[in-house]
């Protein structure tokens, strides 16, 4: 049995759903960011797999994956800075305790 596009898409779907589970159920803001990183990795696997199987010869999918990796680094830096700022102001990193704006 040959490894095809569908195999990579299935692994990527499973990784995406694990990340989604983490984002939906974690209380710690840092753990939610880890879930987001898993989701972005799943997207990157899709980009690179489509690049290889749908348009071999070009590298557009890999370019997109590199841009996503850069934006993931930006998102991690800003997100973790926000966690630090929230922790300094509110003494907690648990998102269900950060409810200043909640009526």
């Amino acid at each position: 049995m040959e490894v095809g596009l569908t195999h990579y898409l299935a692994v990527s779907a499973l990784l995406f759903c694990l990340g989604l589970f983490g984002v939906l159920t974690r209380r710690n803001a840092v753990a939610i960011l880890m879930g987001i990183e898993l989701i972005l990795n799943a997207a990157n696997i899709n980009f690179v797999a489509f690049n290889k199987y749908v348009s071999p010869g070009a590298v557009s999918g890999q370019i997109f994956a590199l841009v996503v990796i850069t934006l993931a680094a930006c998102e991690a830096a800003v997100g973790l800075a926000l966690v630090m700022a929230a922790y300094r102001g509110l003494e907690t990193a648990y998102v269900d305790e950060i409810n200043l704006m909640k009526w």
Partner: protein
Amino acid sequence: MGKLAVFIILSCVTLIPAVIVVTSRNMVRAALSLVPTFLGVTGLYVTLDAEFVAGIQVLIYAGAITVLILFVIMLTEGGTGLRVRQMNAQTKLGALVAFGMAVVLIAFTTATRWPVKAGTMPRYNAAAVGNAFLTSYALVFEVTSLVLLVSLIGAIIIARREE
């Protein structure tokens, strides 16, 4: 046959630590489990002939982002977080949604007929990526670097202690 075995091993290396990332009560263990997940994804990139992306993945994800996450875990209260409840009240609902999403996604991706083309990837991957970045995708490259600069300045200003 060998390719399938490599693919299955790399998938397990990716997915099993990812389960620990989202379920472990110990935050440090969850953060360190990100490393094998990212390295498994790196292996998948290598099997997909994307060597340059694989190298960047090791540098940025396994190197930088994991260390950043570990630092923030150490700097916030509780450290490993073993004494604190880590899951919120909607664990069962979240698991249901994630499982349903997985079933739907896999069903659709296997049912769709993708326009697969046979062909070979460029021989020198890093050279091809560099050429594409500086010709067809020059604007994308510049805008991405601007976004990176702006977000790093923003991160410094947000995290700075206010006087």
